[in-house]
């Protein structure tokens, strides 16, 4: 049962990483245009920073 001491924190940390990634995606507008993001992969434009300040219009 000692393995639990490792396994439980590992499962919590991995789940927590997933949650953190989800919250980060939410905060950086990555759910605004799922359809567009899916087709952008076909574009040959150099588009390495899709949603950052440089491209985001001022509010």
């Amino acid at each position, binding site marked *: *049962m000692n393995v*639990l001491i490792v396994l*439980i924190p590992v*499962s*919590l940390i991995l*789940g*927590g990483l*997933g*949650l953190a990634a*989800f*919250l980060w995606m*939410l905060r950086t507008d990555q*759910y*605004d*245009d*799922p*359809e*567009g993001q899916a*087709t*952008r*992969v*076909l*574009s*040959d*434009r*150099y*588009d*390495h920073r899709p949603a950052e300040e*440089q*491209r*985001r*219009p*001022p*509010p």
Partner: protein
Amino acid sequence: MTGATFPAPLVCPACVLAPDARVEPSRAPADAPLRRFDLSLPAIHCAACIAGVERTLEATPGVAAARVNLGLRRVAVTAADAPGAEARLIAALAARGYDARPLDSAALEASRTDAAGRDLLARIGVAAFASMNVMLLSVAVWSGATDSARALFHWLSAAITLPAVAFSAWPFFRAAATSLRAGRLDMDVPISTAILIAVAVSVSETMLGGRQAFFEAAIMLTLFLLVGRYLAHRTRAAARSAAAELAALEVHMATRVRADGVHETVPIDALRAGDLVIVPPGCRIPVDGVVVIGRSELDASLLSGETMPEAVAPGAAVRAGMANLSGPLHIRAEALGADTLLHQVTRLIENAERSRTRYATLAERAARLYAPLVLALALVAFVVWGAGTDDWRLAANIAAAVLIITCPCGLGLAVPAVLTAASGRLYRAGVLLKDGAALEKLAEIDTVVFDKTGTLTTGRPVLVNVADLPPAAFAAAAALAQTSAHPLARAIAEAAAAAGIVASPVTDIAEHPGMGAAGRLGGQVVRLGRAGWVGAAAVLDRTAAWVAIGHADPVEFIFEDELRPDAAETIAAFRAANVSVTLLSGDVDGPVAAIAARLGIADWVARATPQTKVAHLETLRAQGRRVLMVGDGLNDAAALAAAHVSISPASAVDASRSAADLIVTGASLAPVAASWRIAVEARRRILQNIAFAFAYNLVTVPLAFAGLVTPLVAALAMSGSSLAVCVNALRLGQGR
């Protein structure tokens, strides 16, 4: 383009091979203030369109950044705020073949950032994370963990669940507090009670070293109900943003003549009484006022439903919203604020909305019955078990089980899921649903009232007596009509082209605004225009133009409104289902009777003012009828608000669109009948789901009452019933 070269980013070999793929850094002048422009791109659909639009815009001088949103068919451009900047962007896109229209950024602001939806998503994320982990620990308990291991799992579950519930279930707690303070018992009260009691009992069991805890039930309940909340929110937000886009497509600007004679373009809101405004042909009149210079004809069909254009000359009073057909007009703004027609209609709408009783949705009616019942059941279980066994700890456990089992997952998830599926299907059919209650109301209708101009018809005239026209007159009329933008002239030109009539060699064609057009044909004067001007006796009650060659007798050209595609089928569909159909128009008797006869509508009313339209609807309501009103004009707006439920086409005036519950995009009328069919089906699904929820409770509540519901059974029952109602709802989305 500046011609400066920028080093290609070496990280991407494809970019080196294809130099075009490089994006140059922003080249906006540092000094010009940047502004956000939103453009609507109705035709874009693929990756090439995205790249094309963004590249075109970024190559336009002054543009700092452009980002296409494919889902919304929009592009946000950050560019230097110079006069005419927006027009230049649109011209640049048009040159590359992308159809773009300006959107009013201010009107979009409200729907752009969906803060509420984001908040719900974050809560769903936390609840999903917590329920996965708690479920893992619970499975360990159910598979036989004992003593210290069980205690450890329970403590861990408590550590995860408590903060997660506090954060994720907050919307329910807040809503429950609000409704309790208002003295109401709605769905949020039993939801909040179930979550809180489940958590409280579980914590106390954990501290006492008990065998079972309901942590996973509490957090799963929160998760499922949050998903239902989010679906409901999405449905509303999607329709709201689409409606906001429709409003934003109308840019409200007018051309004002300053005292020094300079023309300036100003927003309509900035106009004051006494301002001189220029209205070119083809534009709408922005304010109520009086004609100072110019003669023209005005189309008032959006205001009154009349299709016959009205001739105006200096001194004539004009209303905001009329379309100027033939000559430029200078108008002195007069009535503003409380005196305008628009304001009077707004007051009528307010009155109509006040007299319309608030509609209780099926879910609300079910909740009103259900919420007190659930709370009473849990209380009875607690008292009976407590008094019977004198084991109050067991009694609390059983009361918690009853609350969890009866918690209205079915209702909380079932109705939003049906509405989401239905509004998705409506959207594909070209209909925007503004709120879910409207769909339920639409399913109940037994009477449909149609407006004529702009609703059953497109508002565009077509020539109807082609067969009776002498070829010489038709050929002369075709020649005169070719040069004019007047709708009747366009109709003659189209009919002539369709009939293969070759226009006569008419020379010296001159347009006489407000009268018609004249020219010379072999030494004779030919005229096309109003009856009085051409020298004919006017026939009231129908839309007509006259042609005279020299001193010969004038020939009458008769026009009728073009029917919308599928108007006849739509009316037949309602008829077939025993829904009575009425035509309620502001136009004069002749055209209304003609359209009614063509569509087979026996019950029609002509010359209806906005007030009589509302009165007509109120009479129908007093008779116990549930009326669907379909209309587009300003004169329909109050009637739309007074009806049980209402639909307006996307071409309608702003006031009507915002008064209507559903908006039909596109030219066809077929979506009206289609949305009614979808509504009937959606209502049936909602009722099925509510019936299922009650049936499920009939089986599970006795079990919970008997103390047979363990946390494992509760988890299975809850997810099973949620899945069942969702699948039932999604079946609705499958249709065509």
